[in-house]
């Protein structure tokens, strides 16, 4: 985002050009010629991303403690034979793969929209305190209400996540200059620390709660049945529709509140609607898959370097590439520690941290 603005003056000062190159490009003829070409290129990239996701989906069905050939996977999907053990393995892997696609897509979309609405490249469910909110709610559910099943955790996690996200965003945008990156990061870190302390009060005094909770806490898509995945589907669908429709709005919000208002946006309303979509998406993703960090942070950034700052492209790309990362992390996690598994939530954090550090070193973190 910053590159385009800082690059412009350099071009204006270009000695050979009587007319600034930027202005020449914006003559109607050139713009009309450039737009379809750009769109075609973006569409090609998007198709490539879909192919990558399809390949990883196939890999997720085929790879694991019991490796299968793609032919077997295809057979199991088209002509299922209940007596065949390999086919049963494939069918057992379908729910987690579907969940990986759903949760990954939700986190990617929510991350991109959050970064847009907060005008902040660091906004991410994990850093915004959503995970801590969901975690505290789940612990409360286990301890006070004796909830033991994954499908029971969903509702607690959902409410906790939503509450925490709202609180962090409100706190960070109070004070003089709104939600700056550092304030958001610190508000999220502070609220997370406080919530984890409260959670520790329960966990230290009840070992049973700790025993259940520690497996939810790592975040992963393994072992989820259809009964867990399906209830989340309507929330995810509504959230995704809301967010995908906000691309144009996010573009004008990126120019600043005043300009967006000048362009006819109702800034407060659009921000609230987008926030609702975000909470639906990352709340239910966290509820279904546990706290999975960094996907929502890393993917929009990687996407931005492909597409530029246009949210109408960033959002669909995030929707496709984030599940690819999550499935990829899940597949790697299945094979690095055989016969055990490293949950996807851990692998994404291990992949995400270096990227985060790289973003900070490039100086994008403090600015924008």
């Amino acid at each position: 985002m910053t590159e385009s603005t800082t690059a412009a003056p350099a071009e204006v000062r270009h000695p050979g050009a009587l007319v600034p190159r930027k202005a020449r490009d914006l003559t109607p003829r050139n713009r009309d010629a450039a737009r379809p070409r750009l769109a075609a290129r973006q569409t090609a990239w998007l198709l490539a991303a879909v192919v990558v996701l399809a390949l990883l989906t196939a890999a997720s069905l085929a790879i694991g403690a019991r490796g299968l050939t793609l032919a077997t996977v295809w057979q199991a999907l088209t002509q299922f034979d209940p007596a065949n053990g390999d086919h049963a393995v494939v069918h057992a892997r379908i729910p987690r793969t579907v969940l990986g696609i759903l949760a990954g897509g939700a986190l990617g979309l929510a991350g991109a929209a959050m970064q847009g609405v907060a005008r902040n490249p660091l906004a991410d469910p994990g850093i915004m305190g959503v995970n801590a909110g969901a975690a505290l709610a789940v612990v409360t559910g286990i301890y006070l209400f004796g909830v033991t099943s994954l499908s029971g955790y969903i509702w607690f996690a959902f409410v906790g996540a939503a509450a925490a996200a709202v609180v962090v965003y409100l706190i960070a945008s109070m004070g003089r200059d709104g939600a700056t990156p550092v304030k958001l990061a610190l508000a999220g870190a502070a609220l997370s620390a406080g919530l984890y302390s409260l959670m520790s009060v329960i966990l230290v005094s009840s070992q049973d709660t700790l025993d259940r909770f520690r497996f939810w806490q790592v975040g992963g898509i393994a072992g989820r049945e259809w009964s867990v995945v399906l209830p989340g589907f309507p929330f995810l669908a509504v959230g995704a529709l809301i967010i995908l429709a906000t691309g144009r709005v996010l573009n004008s919000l990126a120019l600043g509140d005043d300009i967006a208002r000048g362009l006819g946006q109702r800034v407060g309303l659009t921000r609230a609607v987008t926030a609702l979509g975000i909470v639906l998406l990352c709340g239910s993703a966290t509820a279904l898959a546990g706290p999975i960090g960094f996907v929502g942070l890393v993917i929009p950034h990687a996407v931005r370097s492909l597409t530029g700052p246009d949210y109408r492209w960033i959002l669909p790309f995030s929707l496709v590439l984030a599940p690819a990362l999550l499935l990829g992390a899940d597949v790697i996690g299945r094979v690095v520690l055989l016969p055990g598994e490293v949950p996807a939530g851990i692998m994404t954090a291990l992949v995400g941290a270096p990227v985060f550090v790289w973003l900070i070193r490039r100086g994008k973190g403090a600015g924008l």
Partner: protein
Amino acid sequence: MNLVETKPPVDLSLPVAKTGSKRPKLIAQHWRTAVLAFGVVLLFAATILLGSYTVTVPDFFKILIAHLTGGERIPGASFIVMENKLPRAVIGVMIGAAFGLSGGLFQTMLRNPLASPDVIGISYGASAAAVTAIVVFGATGPAVSGAALGGALGIAALIYAISRGPSLGSGGGNRGNAAGSRLILAGVGIAAALHAVVNFLMTRADIRTAADALVWLNGSLNSANWERAGMLALALLVLVPAVIALAGPLRILELGDDAAAGLGIRVGFTRLAVVITAVGLAAVATAAAGPVSFVAFLAGPIARRFTRKASLPASALVGALIVLAADYFAANLAPLLLDGTVLPVGVITGALGAPFLLWLLVTANRKDA
């Protein structure tokens, strides 16, 4: 939090003090620091004498003298006071002071009231290393402390290297601030990744081990003993003189890098020395008791509000006060509410510190706070 409220309602009329008499203000500061010191002594006495097992003052001295001279011991009482209460309170004072000094150094050097070793993520380095030691290698006691120390120092070096860039060593005021932000952001990011590692290790452990690790992770004085107190005291004997030696140059550094360089301070060297000392203090305190959250962060701002000036001794005293008060609550009052569970002291400081940090964020009107 009471510590803020009990501020005496003496108005020092700050603008006047700036132009005219500097003396009274200075004396008032000394008085306030003395009040803090008195508070630490009072609370120290309270934690030893009061609680679920009460000791009278004459009894305490009888026990202490008997212990030192090898005289006759009072069954039960001698053990509780000498092996449980006293080392616990001594370690509490020392880690409180160490965290307070460490936070004060970071906040002064980065010119950012929000910087502190636990917010920056050094504590997570200690946590990840210690939990690895507990879960993977089955370590206990000193080995865990050693691992925590190594982890804290290693992660501190990593974060410093990441945030270094061109400006932390040499740049002027504004750029130094950017490096400070980068330090905080790098810390937050690395902390999140280490958090994932800790969570993963917790799932691989036996549930009892995991419960032990959880107590350690919250920072607890439950396993305080003289051996640990001795090691901590030894480390502080090196680090506290270093702080005293650095206090002067650090004060000049606050004038800005250029002014400091003009006054003959080696800016880069001083900054590095301050970072190493501050990290060292946080690391040894974490090794002794685990990452007691938010003490380092809270001590500086509270001390500044109380003494009306950023001062390192006051930060140390406030740190000690916070730990003693929180531990008294965790060890004596919490069991009454929670059917006998002794909470780790860090749970109390975290539960109180987080709202305070959020409140600071809301009220901070600085540009990049």
